[in-house]
């Protein structure tokens, strides 16, 4: 097989279809299958509501809310918990991680705690947080904080430790003070890994927030989904899943966009 200079040897262009359209087609096919299954009642209607029912549920919830809460409130409280825990973790985890990367003694004194927390599934201490703090918002925010914190701290630390010695030496040779070396060399060099950590941490916090809302909550998208399951409102469950999926994609796209802007040199060097 031989490439022509424009390298158009892939099957998509052979089919004269753009990959983007194919993706759309495949999503439409899935919707079609869903519609077909429900229209011809291939599975009991209790188990799988039709697209129309889900759309109706969406309209209904937009207008009347779900059990005394509006959709905006539910989305808002989920995002608020997630965002508050995540931002707290950034504010504390990044400085600690930078310090751990910069001063071996701080690393020696604290790193083992961070590394022990990191692989622990966050939900395993949800019950402990409830015993300690109670069932209100604070224990959920604390849970998300503990989810995001070790990821952010370790990646900031790894970022500092990955700074090339030559770059530091070059800055010192040019007359930079210790602070200037930190400000202009180490901090920017640590940014790509710190941002990667922040992205992973946000995704983890978002996953955890829904789980946290399944237990002892009175609002939030996770609560809406679990509450709907108790009332066998499958249309609301599917609506909730679609909303959570879109929200998840939007959150990761947002952080990725910020990442691209701030760390514009990522992957080039």
């Amino acid at each position, binding site marked *: *097989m*031989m*490439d*022509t*200079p*424009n390298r158009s040897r892939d099957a998509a262009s052979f089919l004269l279809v753009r990959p983007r359209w194919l993706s759309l087609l495949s999503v439409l096919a899935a919707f079609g299958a869903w519609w077909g299954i429900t229209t011809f009642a291939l599975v009991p209607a209790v188990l799988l509501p039709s697209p129309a029912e889900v759309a109706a549920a969406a309209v209904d919830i937009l207008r009347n809310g779900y059990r005394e809460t509006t959709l905006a409130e539910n989305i808002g409280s989920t995002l608020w918990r997630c965002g508050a825990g995540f931002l707290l973790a950034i504010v504390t985890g990044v400085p600690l991680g930078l310090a751990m990367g910069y001063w071996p003694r701080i690393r020696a004194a604290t790193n083992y705690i961070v590394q022990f927390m990191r692989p622990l599934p966050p939900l395993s201490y949800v019950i402990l947080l409830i015993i300690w703090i109670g069932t209100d918002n604070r224990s959920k925010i604390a849970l998300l904080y503990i989810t995001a914190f070790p990821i952010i701290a370790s990646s900031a630390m790894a970022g500092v430790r990955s700074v090339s010695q030559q770059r530091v030496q070059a800055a010192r040779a040019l007359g930079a003070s210790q602070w200037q070396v930190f400000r202009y060399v180490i901090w920017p060099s640590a940014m790509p890994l710190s941002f990667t950590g922040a992205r992973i941490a946000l995704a983890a916090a978002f996953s955890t927030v829904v789980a946290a809302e399944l237990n002892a909550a009175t609002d939030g998208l996770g609560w809406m989904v679990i509450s709907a399951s108790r009332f066998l409102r499958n249309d609301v469950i599917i609506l909730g899943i679609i909303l959570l999926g879109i929200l998840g994609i939007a959150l990761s796209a947002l952080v990725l966009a910020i990442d691209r802007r701030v760390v514009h040199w990522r992957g080039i060097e």
Partner: protein
Amino acid sequence: MNKPFVEFSNLTIEYPSRDGPVVALAGVDLAFSAGDFVCIVGPSGCGKTTLMQTLAGFLAPTRGRVALAGKPITGPGPDRGVVFQQPALFPWMTVSENAGFGPMVRGLRRERREKVEYYLKLVGLWDFRNRYPYQLSGGMQQRLAIVRALVNDPKVLLMDEPFGALDALTREKMQEELHSVWRRTSMTVVFITHSVEEAVYLGTDVVVMSPRPGRILERLCVDFSRRTGERDDIRSIKASPEFVATREHVLGLIWASAD
């Protein structure tokens, strides 16, 4: 000139780009015989690599044709071995598995063992046959990449800056080794390099190319590589007035074309 073994006729390569097509090669005509050692030099971006990629069959001509032994090239094939600047070895295979990759995929199990042994011994890698590529030095890795191409018995060996990433001493040693393999096998070699000295020292023919769009500026026949006897002293050949004059002539062509 007798009947050409490799022939580029009116070869034009255009790449599409946002500002219209970029002409990488503009009507290149070049022919050479079996057993020639053709070195191609020129400034960066002159289309040397493009030329090699068409002969290797990785790239189809926009216009014109490339032929090997009279047959037009339609794709990559075992009759043309390639060696890149990066050795591009298979790190999950041992040294001998890398060397025997060609016969292995072609189902030539019997030839594989003896060829691999012969060539690995020839370049001093036999003792390392059960190691993995990451356990070899840069020079050894590149030797292995060359062996991998040779074991397949190609009619033409295509080399794209094979020694570009090596240090100066290793580079000269590799030049010597390649030269002795070429003398022994009388294989056809197409050799792309940035080093004019390397080209003049190794080549039977030195082809000088112009900056983009790539054209052939001049083709020189040199005979340093065919001389016997004197070869044992690489330094004295490279320092001889005749060698220096040829080298400076080629360098002058490249400088003039860059203005």
